[in-house]
């Protein structure tokens, strides 16, 4: 598990309370609109995302920057992806 402090992001996907696999589907769409080098923030309350998103990044050649707990919302996480291509 790769942890980071709060990371500046160029776009954000709020997946809190939204069912699996929205934590993969919506970021896949949003990252298409980013430029190479830009960062997408993903907000989620779904534990499975902590494994799924790094695995998705590895499979699709994107950089998983890391994750941190959401200090504003108990039980939620922020994950960061940098677009590489």
């Amino acid at each position: 598990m790769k942890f980071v402090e709060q990371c500046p992001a160029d776009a954000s996907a709020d997946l809190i309370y939204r069912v699996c696999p929205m934590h993969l589907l919506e970021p896949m769409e949003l990252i298409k609109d980013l430029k190479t080098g830009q960062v997408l923030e993903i907000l989620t309350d779904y534990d499975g995302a902590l494994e799924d998103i790094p695995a998705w990044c590895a499979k699709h050649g994107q950089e998983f920057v890391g994750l941190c707990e959401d200090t504003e919302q108990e039980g939620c996480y922020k994950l960061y992806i940098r677009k590489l291509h």
Partner: protein
Amino acid sequence: MHIVYLDHAGATPVRPEVLEAMLPYFSEKFGNPSAVYDLGAAVKDAVEEQRAKVAALVGAEAKNIIFTSSGAEANNLAIKGVCLARQQKGRHLIVSGIEHHSVLNAARYLEKFHDFEATFLPVDKYGRVDPERLAKALTPATVLVSIQHASNEIGTIQDLPRLAAVCRQAGVPLHTDAIATAGLVPIDVQALGVDLLSLNGSGLSGPKGIGALYFRPGLRLVPQIHGGIQEDGRRGGTENVPGIIGLGRAAELARQELPQRAASLQKLRDRLVTGVLTEVPEVIYTGHPEQRLPGHASFCVEGIEGEALLFMLSRQGIYANTGSACASKALKTSPVLCALGIRPDLAQGSIVFTFSSSNREEDVSAVLRELPAAVAKLRSFSPVWRKRAAGGAA
């Protein structure tokens, strides 16, 4: 016998154009919108077109519309969904005391099962919520306010922009049940200042069994129907595609026709109100005299029971309502009329007429011909009324 149907707040016939749009989606266009093959993808495209039409009716973006199974489900999703999503901030919500049961009972559910406290705001004699009273009811623990756009029982339209300003200042989202107003009154969620808005198909002369909820971008909801990723993961369950197509077509027609429709309904309504108040002694007009739904006329008639009056009129082919279907079936006094301060015995004489574009001047004439005689006949059976007419105390 010619039927005069004046209970459009209760149910509306599906317009032929709407039915025509729906029919292919029961048969040849039956695909599941979640399917990846063409048959499903084409249906998904059609669903998204309807989402845009519903959004346009209320001045929103398509991505902020969730389709539901009814207006009641939309109200439940708004109230339970937002309160549960925000419960870390507090466990207090405010609703007006004259809301539909799908709002009142959703609030009571949160009290009973989730340790919330609900404030049921009183209204004035016209059924309006006072913004100052709302401001006083807000607490640091308040996470949602829900106040209807208009009442289908008394027709009164709330001053939502002023109420929304109070909520905005406190940082509390405002939900409104617009089931009675959508398609009859112009709606722009930005101008009204609301964060959530419910509507349904039947109110738009569309099908029953379909509703929609608008939610402000960024507002989180806990799903209330747990399932798949339909509605972007906010409401599970395979979509009611024919219903969605019908709602979209009805919303499109309503948006095009709204100005003319409102004017024609108001004309019929005003003639009925003037006639009833002139022809029937000892009747009060309930709700706000001006800030009300264009095709809505509601009265309380002294010395009779509304149910008996409905029965008498129905024998002449005139179909109206007493207001709240739930309260009337249980022969209970309407809580909405009680909230206006109307005496319980007078509230028993409630009768509500609601028009649509299908009604004509002859329908008003029929009511004005039959109603005074029906009221007089019922009163002649009433010992209380006879005593009163003879000069005794009622």
